[in-house]
């Protein structure tokens, strides 16, 4: 009975597209409407960058701390790992008992996770996660 409602048909993505279009229309309509309805006054001081009422010093396009870059790199390591693990996770518990594939699948994935853990330990040891 419940298998009738299973999903592998492409037509199930159509309502998703409708939802996306509706959300886009909501966003655009709000921006356009408020631009039309609201008042518009311009001024020299009004246009300056807000820095707590002080005259702005320099520009905001400047160098920033390299730690943010390291966080991004470490994130890539783990995020790619997790994405690779999703197909494994969804079929792992339904492997056939007598196929003998369970130890192979488990072993390969443990090795895969182990490589990430080594990288994580290296990053920890190098002080990536210390924010002092």
């Amino acid at each position, binding site marked *: 009975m419940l298998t009738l409602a299973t*999903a592998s048909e492409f037509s199930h993505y159509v309502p998703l597209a409708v939802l996306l279009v509706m*959300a886009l229309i909501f966003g655009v309509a709000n921006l356009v409407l408020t631009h039309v309805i*609201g008042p518009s006054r311009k001024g020299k001081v009004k246009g300056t960058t*807000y820095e*707590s009422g002080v005259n702005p010093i320099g520009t905001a396009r400047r160098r920033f701390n390299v730690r943010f870059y390291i966080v991004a790199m470490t994130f890539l390591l783990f995020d790619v790992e997790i994405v690779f693990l999703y197909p494994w996770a969804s079929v*792992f518990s339904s492997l056939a008992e007598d196929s003998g594939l*369970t*130890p192979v699948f488990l072993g390969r994935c443990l090795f895969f996770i182990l490589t990430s853990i080594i990288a*994580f330990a290296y990053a920890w040891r190098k002080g990536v996660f210390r*924010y002092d």
Partner: protein
Amino acid sequence: MFSAQVFVSMLVVTIALHVILGAVAYSVMLERKIASWVQNRIGPNRTGFDFGQPFLPKFHFWGLGQPLADGLKLFLKEDYTPPNVDKVLFIIAPMLAVVPALIAWAVIPWGGYWDFPGLTVFGTEIAQPGMAVVTVAPINIGILYFLAVGSLAVYGVVIGGYASNNKYSFLGGLRATAQMLSYEIPLGVSILIIILMFGTARTDLIVLNQAQGILGWNIVWMPLLAVIFFTSQLAEANRTPFDLAECEQELVGGFHTEYSSMKFALYFLAEYAHIVTGAAFFTLLFLGGWSIPFYVGQAAAGGLPLVLLNVGVFAFKMFLIVALVMVIRWTIPRFRFDQLMQLAWRCLIPVSLILLLAAAVLVALKVPAIHWWMLGVNVLTFIGLVVIGPKVPKGPPVNRKIPLEGSRFSPLTTS
């Protein structure tokens, strides 16, 4: 003409989008009410639906007109674009924030399975009868869609912060990016563990596996995982105690400092939509979705009354989670940025990896009563955390004095 599933999905799109927008507006009101109750005040209770117009009848309605009045006010404000911003990015950034927030809930199974009777108007068959999941998209990637769309939310924040050409906005955008990226990993791993346990990524099957009274719910068997997911969800939605991206004392408004009128409102709306969506996914993954507590023989599929009951149960659980998030905001003070990053990288990620390894081994061994094993692993990991946690070597103290160089208040420059 339409199949039952497509028709039901269209129905859900139409209703749920409006309900979510309304829920977001009224969760702002709920937030203000809860804040006032926590602080021993009364909160907004004056604005009815007359908006101060003398020709409309005066009712206060316990202040329920407040969200509408707020929205109207934001519409009537000036939509100002400062001259030194990056104009194109500045305008599309709020949309990049609000669109993912409004489509992320597409895979939530609101009301179980509907034995749809079909719809015929004037002899023309509009929808065929059949079994349908009460959701927007019953797609087989399921919960993966939530992660994919949730990652897109970073763009709105970081592009808005960069385009504003303001130091506060830039720092806020950077912080928000680092925070959202870091907390996405424990979020992804905890979802991975659930997929591993149930062997499916489809949201309706995840709920169906839990729908056996309260003893089927994941929060009973994996409490530590639920805490990890909830914490990461709070950080993903930029909520206190993790709202470092917009903390008023340090960064004025964070990434939306230069925004006004409806552009600001779209950011605001996106934040609350993230809370509502996060509550829905917590309900779905850990609180058993539409399953009624202490009632075991719940039918999986049925007619319209059962579907409405299921939607009611789901919405009630979501409401409890949203209220909890708001109470947390007014109870727990804000973290410091280094504490925030250390919580993610030195605590949540290793713990979630340990739970993932344990779950993989348990599933591979095909142990009987895997739920009890998982509960044991959770409890043991928690005890291990309490024991080992204080013994992990700490870095040097961070509260040291930083010399003020180059500032006009600095003693170096005055001499």
